[in-house]
Structure formats: C-alpha cells, structure tokens
C-alpha cells in the first residue's frame, strides 16, 4: 500500500511513533496524542502491545473512535486486564515492568530534557504557563525507553529548557544515575513532524537518525537551538501510508480533534 500525498504534521508524528513501538511490550501512554499513537500501533503493527495509563487501567483493548478527553472513560479502558489506581499504575513503571513511555513536550534540549511547564519569565511569573508534568515526569524517569513526541518547530529545540520538567540525560553521561534515577533508563527517540532523533550511546547527545522522505538533513536542523549529531546513515522516513491515514481518519479520530494540524506534503 502506498503513501499519501497530503497529511498533517500531527498525522505524520503519530505514524512515525506508532512504527517505533514493539509488539508484546508494555508502554506507558500519556494524555492526548500518545493515546492515538498506541491505538494506531495496536490496530496495525503491535496487536499485543500492553498499554498502561496513570489513571489505573492496564492493557485495555481500546475502542474506536477515540473519545477525546477520556483517558479514564469506558472506551479507552475497555476490556482492560486490570483496573486499579494511580499508585499501582506508577508502581509497574518504578519496578521496571514498563518498556516504553510516550510523552509530549513543549521544549527539549540536546540531552532530551523536557519542558512542559512554562515558557519565558521565571517560575513565579512565567510568560506562558502550561499544564506541567502531569505524569510525564514519572514516565520519563521510570520507563525503560521514553519516546518524546513534538512538533518540529526549531524554537522547541533549545540549548537550555526554560524549566526542566521531566528528565532526559540531564547534563550528560552518568547524570541520571548520579541524580538517583533508575539505571539504564532515558529518552530513546524524539519523534517530530519532520524527523526522528536518537541519542548517542557515549555522549547521550541527541542524534538525527531519520528525516521525512524528501527533506534534507540541513532543512531539519536549521534553526535548532543546538546542533544535533547526525547519524552516518540516515533513515528516510516514509510519509503516512494510505492504511495509516484511513485508520486514523476513519476509525480512530473521525472528528479530527487530535490528528488535525498543519497540512504537509512530501517534497519532491
């Protein structure tokens, strides 16, 4: 099945993230877009993915269409393996039972540190204030591999985040462990609307590993607040397939509340 010619930036991010998840693994799913990623992955790629939500649902077989705003509602937690509460939900993550975490970000720095709290000003009087951690800090701290999903706007890639809400590799190799965070955890991929980043095993710096088909690495890096490493072999990221798009637009989010966004085309 081919790819489509026109799609939104959000649709691309969702598809790109869904392709990364592994089947037969657990994933801690954050509010909003990550929910749609997990549902898409389950439908197309990873039928045995076990989702877990901070609201206390484990392993649901979520119904579609996705009902916006109801992570805890009956559609999203349908046919779960277990219904419990927040303290138990996070305990699964602390004890190492959760393979992947998926969260959004306002800003991210070269070590994958995440800001979802504020922009500009200071803590007491921010220029703009956002929801804050929610369960994001738990997900980024405690799951084995964290996927960060954000729109590819260069101003979101900063040298220093305005507020460090959820930990990436902090200030480099060994810093997470030194701070007391669980060993061997950290950001795994940064999924954007134009590219895919990983992290260098040695330096823990963000590394460009893939770009949307038709884009050049320079176009992706331009304007970022730091210069990411670039992998020797860059992967060409396929735009959304017709299958993915149909699933998203017709089954999962027909109202378009999550998937709508800026229109994109694959440059030719």
């Amino acid at each position: 099945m081919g790819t489509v010619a026109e799609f939104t930036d959000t649709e691309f991010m969702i598809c790109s993230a869904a392709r990364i998840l592994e089947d037969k693994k657990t994933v801690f799913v954050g509010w909003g877009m990550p929910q749609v990623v997990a549902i898409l992955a389950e439908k197309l790629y990873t039928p045995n993915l076990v989702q877990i939500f901070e609201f206390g649902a484990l392993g649901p077989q979520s119904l579609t269409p996705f009902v916006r705003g109801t992570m805890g509602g009956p559609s999203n937690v349908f046919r779960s393996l277990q219904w419990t509460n927040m303290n138990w939900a996070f305990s699964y993550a602390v004890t190492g039972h959760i393979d992947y975490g998926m969260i959004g970000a306002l800003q991210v720095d070269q070590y994958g540190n995440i800001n979802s709290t504020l922009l500009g000003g200071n803590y007491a009087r921010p220029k703009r204030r956002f929801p804050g951690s929610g369960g994001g800090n738990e997900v980024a701290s405690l799951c084995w591999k964290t996927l960060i999903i954000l729109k590819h706007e260069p101003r979101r890639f900063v040298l220093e985040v305005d507020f460090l809400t959820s930990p990436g590799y902090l200030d480099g190799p060994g810093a997470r462990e030194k701070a007391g965070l669980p060993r061997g955890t950290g950001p795994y991929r940064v999924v954007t609307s134009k590219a895919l980043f990983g992290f260098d095993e040695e330096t823990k710096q963000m590394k460009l590993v893939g770009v949307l088909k038709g884009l050049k690495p320079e176009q992706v890096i331009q304007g970022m607040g730091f210069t990411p490493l670039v992998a020797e072999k860059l992967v060409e990221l396929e735009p959304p397939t017709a299958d993915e798009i149909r699933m998203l637009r017709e089954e999962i989010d027909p109202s378009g509340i999550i998937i709508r966004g800026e229109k994109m085309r694959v440059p030719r």
Partner: protein
Amino acid sequence: MLQGQVEIHFTHPDDFREWVRENKKREAVEKLMTEREAVARLVADGDYIAYDFSSLTRGPQAMVREIIRQRRYGLWVCAEFTLHETALLVAAGCCSRIDVGFLGYGNYIGRAVAEGKVKVFEWTNGALASRMLAGARGIPFMPMRNLLGTDGVKYSGAKVVSDPFTGEPVCLVPALNPDVFLVHVHQADVYGNARIFGTNLFALEAAMAAKKVIVSAEEIIDPLEFRKEPAKTTIPYFLVSAVVHLPFGAYPGGVPGRYELDLEHIDKLNAIQTGEEMQGYLQEYIYGVQDHMEFLEKRVGWEKLQELIRKASIREGYH
C-alpha cells in the same frame, strides 16, 4: 540535602491522628445532606482541597460548583488531574494556591498563573499520589525514584537525601493530609460507605488521609448491599463526613457505566478566553442557579441527560 524552599501543606502525623480521634466518629450515623449543607458545614475558607478523578471522568463537578456558589476563599487545591475545575475556582476567586500535578488546559488558567493571580507549586501526578499514600499510611513522607534531577525539586517541597540502604540519592515527598476530599462515587449508603466502579486516582488513600470527606453519589443504596460484597467497598463509612445524593454529579464529565461526558458543554469551557467570558459562564451555570437540581433542569435539560445515558452503552465491568 537538596530541597525546595516553598510552602508545603503538611500536617504532623500525630496532629492528624488526634483530629481523626476527635472528629471522625466511628459510630454509624446518617450523614445524608444537601450539597449546600455539606459545603456550609465542611468547607472552610483557606482549606486544602483534593479530589478524584478527573474533570471529564467521575469528577466531583457538582460539589465544586457548590463551593464556588458559596464563594469560599483562599482554597489550596491539589490539582492531581484537573482540567476545568481549577480554572473555575481561580476565576471565582476561591483558590489562591495550587499544587500541580497537571494544571489543566485552556488559556485562562495559564494566564492567571502568569499574572500572579494564583500561586503554584510544582509537583507531579505521581508525587501527589505518593504524598497522599503517605498521608493514608500515617507516615511523614514517601520515598520516590523520580522528580530527581529536575526543577521540580526546587519548586516543590520535596527533599533529596542519601538513602541509608544504598547510599544513593532518593527523593522524599511529604505526606499530604487534605482538609477536604471530594469524591463522586457510583453508590453510597447514608452512613458513607461508598463504591466506585472502574479505576480511580487515590480514592481510599485520600479518604483515609483527609480530615473531611464529602462523598457525592449517583445513587444511595441499602447499607446491607455493602456487606454482601465487601470486596467492592471503596471507602468505609467512618472515613466519611457527609453523603450528598447528586445524580449526574460529574456533569459535564461522565461516570463510567452510567452516562457519557457532554463534549458540547466541555467545548464551551475550553473556549473560555477572557475574564468576561469566564464571568459569563460562572453567572449562567453556577451563581445563576440555586443548586445542582436546578442546574440540571434549567441549564442542561432532561433530553441532554437522556442522550448522555444512551451514549454510555458500555456497562461491562461497572457493577
């Protein structure tokens, strides 16, 4: 030791115990009252308030509206997973401090923080749940493996210490004992025994940790029902201060297995941008009606409620 220099709501565990001994009666007495009575008697200016679950799912929305209607002042809110309530409480002048959690979305609340109208402290959902668990276990703090390495340590009341068992850093968050816990449940009896179907944030934790617990319930059932299936009891009566019978008490949110959320009404809340729009909402839906029943009758309507019940077609597991 690394620690923030911010205000925390902290009650010495022994002071909490004494409050419980003096005020939480172990006698099973009828506690059924109206929402007006419950707020008048049990919610004081300056109280620390927590609630379960979210604005869109089984939140105590009718109770929050009544607090606003009675114009409480200086509340400190535990915004564990709050969306609209906190904005409404701030806009109505009820709330001066917020422990975040998740602050809720919308421009209104964001601007209120930016303009310094409300003071915020920066925890996380898990940290607040851990604090509540410590409050429920009667211990002064709970250790955590997260919050570490982030700015949250500076702007919360957490402390980072060296763990005496591993020698490595561990984060300690102080116990949370709210003054008031609001919880909307599927079923309660007149004494306060309560059942929730589905998941929750920290219903039993907070009921045990809070000084005053207001249970609002979709339905009131016979006390014997609880004894027939003790595994289903979420909260036993002696933790509870008041029981309020509030069908559709989570509206515009839904109650799993009973009725779906009203997305139209929620869009109306989401759309609020200016102070004027906000005051308009407060006037129309809260100040302008005398109680929850009038709100349902005059502002929501029977037809809409029936539609929301019809939409709640998934009943599996919610019994």
